[in-house]
């Protein structure tokens, strides 16, 4: 099986097959991805996030249409879409319903849509999302839109995967205190106020505007929790002229009103990223994060093989019987199931 070679020729069956292998974490899938990796890094990755029901899928549908049929003077670009929905924590099953809103995109050979379940992963995207992005990137899709699950306040991982993050809001979702809390609003490069034909849109926009006033003048980008990429790499100086001001754009995703403006801002943001040196910086952070996530799951798996199932249950039972604390249990388990 040589999926990688077919994927480089944009063979859709091969793309879909490898995506499944990556989601299932198979070694042969990962090996194909190794071959593809040098061909990645070209696509503009756009994250779309926001609470459930604000209109993410409808907006992605309209955005993809704008990218495929742009207004005068702009070239159409090919679009890959990865739409993430939650897996049930009880059955592990999922209903992936984002395609319902994307029926306008059917039949276009330059659009590839893949639905994906979180499979237990927190953070709003799935573990394999980075891999699926790489596949579409290598296949030559110029713009890749990643739609997260209906995200709450801390599902911010999308900002680590994307170059440009759109946060979608709608009227009636919360007051000014919600808006200045940490979390999802912090990761926005572009704020979209969807359902702009609904009552309360003025108030919602005023709240978002005042929340942005509290934000620092230069958007710092997403902070890496483990430690930033070494600063000595960052030779680019960010000049005052190239500060990105987060726009607030009103849309009605159902009929497409205002979506053209969003597509324009996405392209402007891309230009800003490239000119300011932020593109390279985000790319480094992105790869570091992807590598560390893989490292974590690999170490976890390796550790799991050091402790027998029986020993694991013994230690767990000691915790349940309140004989040892959870921290003591971790100490024992981390040492292969033996006390030091």
């Amino acid at each position, binding site marked *: 099986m040589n999926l990688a070679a077919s994927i480089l020729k944009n063979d859709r069956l091969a793309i879909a097959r490898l995506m499944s292998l990556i989601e299932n974490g198979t070694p042969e899938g990962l090996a194909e991805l190794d071959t593809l990796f040098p061909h990645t890094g070209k696509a503009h990755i756009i994250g779309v996030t926001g609470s459930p029901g604000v209109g993410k899928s409808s907006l992605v549908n309209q955005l993809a249409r704008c990218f495929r049929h742009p207004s005068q003077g702009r070239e159409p670009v090919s679009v890959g879409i990865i739409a993430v929905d939650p897996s049930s924590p009880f059955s592990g099953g*999922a*209903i*992936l319903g984002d*395609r*319902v809103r994307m029926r306008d995109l*059917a*039949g276009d050979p330059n659009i590839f*849509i893949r*639905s994906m379940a979180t499979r237990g992963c927190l953070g709003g995207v799935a*573990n394999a999302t980075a891999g699926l992005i790489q596949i579409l990137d290598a296949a030559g899709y110029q713009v890749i839109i990643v739609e997260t699950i209906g995200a709450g306040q801390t599902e911010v991982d999308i900002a680590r995967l994307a170059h440009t993050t759109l946060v979608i809001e709608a009227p009636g979702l919360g007051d000014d205190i919600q808006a200045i809390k940490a979390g999802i609003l912090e990761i926005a490069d572009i704020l979209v106020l969807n359902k702009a034909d609904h009552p309360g849109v003025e108030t919602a926009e005023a709240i978002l505007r005042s929340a942005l006033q509290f934000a620092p003048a230069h958007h710092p980008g997403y902070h890496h929790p483990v430690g930033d990429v070494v600063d000595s790499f960052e030779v680019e100086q960010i000049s005052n002229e190239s500060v990105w001001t987060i726009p607030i754009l009103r849309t009605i995703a159902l009929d497409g009103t205002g979506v053209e403006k969003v597509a324009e801002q996405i392209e402007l943001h891309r230009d800003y990223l490239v000119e300011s040196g932020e593109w390279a910086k985000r790319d480094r952070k992105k790869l570091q994060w992807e590598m560390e996530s893989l490292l974590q799951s690999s170490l976890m798996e390796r550790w799991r093989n050091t402790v027998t199932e029986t020993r694991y249950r013994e230690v767990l039972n000691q915790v349940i019987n309140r004989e040892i604390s959870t921290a003591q249990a971790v100490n024992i388990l981390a040492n292969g199931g033996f006390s030091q």
Partner: protein
Amino acid sequence: MSERKIRVLMAKPGLDGHDRGAKVVARALRDAGMEVIYTGLRQTPEMIAEAALQEDVDVVGLSILSGAHMALIPKVIELLKANHQEHVRVFVGGIIPDEDILLLKQMGVVGIYGPGTTTEKIVSEIRHAITQ
């Protein structure tokens, strides 16, 4: 790493707008641990085959209550084959007359479920068809 999940495309081809059955089955398959890609109403056979390809599903479930099954289902099966997706199992739910059931099964439809079918039966027959 995660185990292999059964992926199902649940689609309503044709023009009838009654999707309650499709939703009930989608929910049952979800509760059985499967990943169900729900496409919604009024899908053409072309849209269904394209979605089945992009989503790399194991199963396509078609819900038809309009009576157009003999026009729509053979077309879906033909397009799946044209896309090199002959491994995809096709299941049908809806109002299908007995004489058509035989014909559809000859075309390769694995299971056909009318009103009153239990969701347990559908779940177990899909599982069986995939694991064998």
